[in-house]
């Protein structure tokens, strides 16, 4: 069966597709010598139009400013239908109005940090996200909660790596994130391995487990499980991240990932060592000077 002869429109389109894939104009013309005289000026014009239009740029600050507005609007997108908790006439009363104003100001600030929560390194709001993470750790009441926060932040660094590899990114940003993730995991482990026994005087009689120490041990196992999960995730994702990188960067990043992976393994092993309950010390060795209450 003979193939239908391509029309000039087909030939023109074929050349345009080839030019788009990087073939030169001359090579395209050589493919179709009979049509070359008619093709050449049209292809040149198409190329010039592409080149010319690519010189129209949108200033980065404009693109970022639009994104900030969009991201805020994204947060405000209706997700769930909720019952209204106030009626407009409440705003006419002085006290509710004042409370609403304070609340609105608070939410506006919090809204920004909520938007920042999904930002990535290099984004305008990323420093806000970092600040928020520090505040979250500081505000965590117990050592156990702080450790949980650190694990969550380690996981967040991995998620950021995943998002960054979808964009065109450089190995320096990925290295920083990989190291940042391990550092957060290490902070969590350090907190869980710290021997901070309750005051000696509060220790239970020998042979009995002090309740707060039992909770500490429970959290240690929880953190270990979370980090193991994190380690498994890293192992699965590592290959995917590497595949997204340009071939020239893969080898170096592979060694960075490997190093961080081993470090995380070491940290988990540390958590596996069962911590000993602080020993009951004789009163004379007590770290608390009983004669001077309040001084260590």
């Amino acid at each position: 069966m003979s193939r239908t002869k391509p029309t000039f429109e087909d030939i023109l389109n074929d050349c345009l597709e080839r030019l788009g894939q990087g073939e030169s104009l001359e090579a395209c013309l050589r493919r179709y010598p009979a049509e070359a005289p008619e093709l050449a000026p049209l292809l040149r014009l198409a190329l010039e139009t592409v080149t010319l239009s690519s010189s129209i740029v949108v200033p980065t600050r404009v693109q970022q400013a639009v994104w900030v507005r969009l991201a805020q609007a994204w947060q405000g997108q209706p997700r769930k239908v909720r019952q209204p908790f106030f009626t407009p006439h409440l705003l006419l009363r002085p006290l509710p109005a004042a409370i609403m104003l304070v609340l609105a100001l608070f939410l506006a600030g919090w809204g920004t940090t909520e938007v920042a929560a999904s930002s990535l390194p290099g984004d305008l709001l990323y420093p806000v996200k970092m600040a928020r993470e520090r505040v979250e750790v500081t505000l965590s009441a117990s050592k156990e909660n702080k450790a949980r926060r650190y694990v969550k932040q380690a996981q967040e660094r991995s998620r950021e790596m995943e998002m960054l590899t979808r964009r065109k990114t450089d190995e320096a940003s990925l290295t920083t994130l990989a190291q940042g993730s391990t550092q957060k995991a290490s902070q969590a482990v350090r907190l869980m391995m710290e021997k901070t026994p309750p005051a000696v005087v509060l220790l239970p009689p020998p042979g009995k487990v002090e309740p707060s120490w039992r909770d500490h041990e429970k959290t240690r196992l929880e953190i270990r499980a979370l980090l193991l999960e994190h380690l498994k995730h890293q192992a699965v994702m590592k290959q995917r991240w590497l595949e997204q990188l340009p071939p020239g960067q893969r080898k170096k990043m592979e060694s960075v990932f490997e190093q961080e992976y081993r470090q995380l393994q070491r940290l988990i092993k540390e958590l596996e060592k069962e911590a000993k309950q602080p020993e009951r010390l004789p009163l004379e060795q007590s770290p608390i000077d009983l004669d001077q209450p309040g001084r260590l």
Partner: protein
Amino acid sequence: MQDIDDLVREAQRGDLNAFSLVYDHFFPKVHRYITLRIGSATEAEDLTQEVFLKVMQALNTFQFQGSPFASWLFRIAHNLVVDRLRRKTVAGHAIPLDEALSLATGEDVEGEAITSLTMQRVYQALGQLTELHRQVILYRFVAGLSLAETASAMGRNVNAVKALQHSALKSLRKALTRPSLQVERL
């Protein structure tokens, strides 16, 4: 780079990061398309923002059923442009291209002047084309849509777009070679 369709699906599930990647990918294309339709840098920025707001609000209504996401997005952009032009155009006079357009020409002042002049002339020549010819040139060579995406955005079949592409390039060439619109390098 992950497939745009995957990112759109993730964005539809509420992933803001996925939407940011879709935004990064399409923002310059939509901006260029609108700039050469509207002619004003400020209005193009404003309208590009409006396009993405609409896209975001209607994202969950987009369905992957044959129509590429890019076509859907550019149909939104096209409708907004048409609305804006309807309000803006006075007695059929063409709107001049904004001289304050941001052009990526580095530090080369002379190069910038030539590019700006060429841009003005291409913009004027585009204004002399029929709506269909203008659309196909802008979708294919300014926004960088594929033939299939262009066909879907214009509601035509691929062969019809191939024919339009040919006649549009010929018309543009003719418009540019008119004495009042002669352009260096084109």
